[in-house]
């Protein structure tokens, strides 16, 4: 359970830092009058961004728990690492491109450059769909090579985690599809900037999760986790 504990340390650390700025040492029984800190929007940050941040913490906990289970399960004698198909590296590059494209879309929106905005959005969407297609090809290649989902727990984790990651990407695409029409002048133009910011944050997060999963599948993280486990135990 090392990974989830490290993840929780980060979350609790952030929560502690935030709480430290909430005047927890104040003496409310002595204070009368409307407090300037307590407005309708105490943080000044859009509500949707805070909600997304919390949602990403939940998704992060989900993947951290899967990673914990992965490391615990791989200690057993029947574990045989799964070879990473080459196309997965290509897919990774495509997902990086998708993230970069959406970042460019946001920059274009800030500069009121409609043409670049549309181009970047389309590129981001196409790259993301390509990533998902590429992952399906990776599944097909593995299955064709005899690495079936029940063959070995390493295989099972690969299919499960890539599938779950893909589902989260699909959810992101739905959100992107709702934001995109505004760039072509047919949707809610006022909310476009915020929606783009949310999508960009989500894409970067899922890219980060994917890179972590890749580190997991390739076995690069094993040494690091052993150090953490030694420290925790």
């Amino acid at each position, binding site marked *: 359970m090392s990974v989830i504990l490290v993840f929780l340390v980060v979350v609790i650390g952030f929560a502690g830092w935030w709480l430290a700025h909430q005047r927890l040492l104040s*003496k409310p029984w002595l204070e009368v009058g409307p*407090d300037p800190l307590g407005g309708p929007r105490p943080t000044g940050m859009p509500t949707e961004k805070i909600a997304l941040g919390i949602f990403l913490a939940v998704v992060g906990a989900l993947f951290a728990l899967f990673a914990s289970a992965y490391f615990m399960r791989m200690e057993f004698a*029947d574990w045989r690492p799964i070879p990473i198909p080459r196309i997965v590296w290509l897919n990774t590059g495509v997902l990086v491109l998708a993230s970069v494209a959406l970042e460019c879309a946001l920059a274009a929106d800030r500069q009121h450059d409609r043409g670049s905005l549309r181009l970047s959005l389309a590129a981001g969407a196409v790259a993301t769909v390509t990533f998902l297609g590429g992952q399906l090809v990776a599944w097909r290649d593995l299955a064709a090579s005899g690495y079936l989902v029940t063959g070995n727990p390493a295989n099972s984790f690969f299919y499960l985690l890539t599938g779950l990651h893909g589902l989260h990407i699909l959810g992101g695409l739905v959100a992107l599809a709702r934001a995109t029409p505004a760039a072509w002048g047919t949707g809610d133009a006022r909310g476009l900037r915020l929606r783009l910011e949310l999508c960009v944050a989500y894409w970067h997060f899922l890219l980060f999760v994917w890179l972590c999963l890749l580190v997991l599948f390739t076995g690069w993280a094993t040494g690091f986790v052993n150090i953490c486990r030694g420290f925790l135990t």
Partner: protein
Amino acid sequence: MVDATQEIDTDIPPAEVPELELYHPKSWWTTYVFSQDAKIIALQYSGTAFAIGLVALVLSWLIRLQLGFPGLVDFITPEAYYQIVTMHGMIMVVYLLTALFLGGFGNYLIPLMVGARDMVFPYVNMLSYWIYLLAVLVLVASFFAPGGPTGAGWTLYPPQAILGGTPGGQQAGILLMLASLMLFIIGFTMGGLNYVVTILQGRTRGMTLMRMPLTLWGIFTATVMALLAFPALFVACVMMMFDRVLGTSFFMPALVEMGEQLKYGGGSPILFQHLFWFFGHPEVYIVALPAFGIVSDLISVHARKNIFGYRMMVWAIVIIGALSFVVWAHHMYVSGMDPRFGFFFATTTLVIAVPTALKVYNWILTLWRGDIHLRLPMLFALAFIVTFLNGGLTGLFLGNVVVDVPLSDTMFVVAHFHMVMGVAPILVIFGAIYHWYPKITGRMLDEKMGRFHFWVTFVGAYAIFFPMHYVGLVGVPRRYVELGDPAFVTTPVHGLNAFITVAALVVGFAQLVFLFNIVWSLRHGRPSGGNPWGAASLEWQTPETPPGHGNWGRELPIVYRWAYDYSVPGAPRDFIAQDDPWPQPPARPS
């Protein structure tokens, strides 16, 4: 208590209330069924939780009938007994307690207590309820599925949970249970995001975090914990579903069943236990923290005294929430895990008792020299303190490895967790309903029926669970469908088992009186007015009772003080509402 002579800021701008951005329902369906109003959603959550809770209550009667009078009920076969025990446990912990505290009380109280018109994402909030309802329906469907519901025990431990020898293991029962839990978690995540973000972003002017009632701190912290803990259950469910449906071996070791080698091999049942209890122990506090918060408010209001040590109470809630994530393996002392872990988890288990004890002391110090009104909410609050103390103390026993190992599989554990996680939070739920029912309906619950309900429940709960501790101590194992006369139980306990069963039936009957009271008082209850208890927190200051759509009329309230200004010297009443600017600012020269 506030210094009445203190100068207050007189330059208060009017509440800047933007145009109402609420969703306004246009039909009966969107007003009462597919409603986005948090108050309606709260009632929907509560009604569903009570309905499924009634099923669990009936199941508990069946359990006790079998244990007290074995063979009396024909259809309770060993298989049926395990199914009944499993469904009783899971329904009570997840579908009743969690849903009622967070979905019910959370939805009703958060917007009102922070001074908001509604949750920040009403549509998502509505979806949360409907997914919860779907989860309940899927769970109920397992009663009617071929083979019936799963009989794996509420902990669903593999490998037995998905084997043919366990009821529902190779049929639909376990699949429906896993699917239902996953749906519940998805629905809860939607609701939980709303609760947290509304508290962070929806507070009205003047409502700092440190002015929030402790009820909100309890719900807030519990929701954050649930958002981080439920994914562990989700992960466990997904992996078990894979094992069961696809034949993977995440949790399943190599097995021979009925002389046949199964397709599984190499999996780790302990891994499931780690995941399950990483959710399971925080779950105890996910239920307890809202109860802590609510009971703090009930005691303060009905003792007409400010809560003692408000800051410490807030810190204790937060510290308990954080610590509850590093105690999970104390449920696994007998699982065969590395015994060195036992020392670590025993230590953290004992450490968590410190902030918890601090809260108990603060409740008692709040009561000390208070103007105690032994009204129904206060009776339930007092009963909670005693019961939680009892359950907590036996928890300290079981937190120690050397005590837990011999007691782990006995009825002592059943008595412990029912006291601390069953009876104690449910007493708070009752107290809270007696307390807030007037705000929700505009009428008081009937006092006589309420007192009958209280005394039978309180005394009856002790009649059930005190003897059960003893039964466990003399060695009666749990999970046995019928005890018989084993050599290892040297003290006769059949009489006690029968006594416990009779007590359980009587306590169950009292709950029916409570439900009747709720329905009867809707029409016949005494009109309550807006604030019958003279409470200071914001939800009692709404312009209408029951609060209307949008809660606050044209302008949102401004909060001037914390929620516990009771018996303030010099004040015109024995409480000062949170939105009361008293002492009135002097008239300003024109």
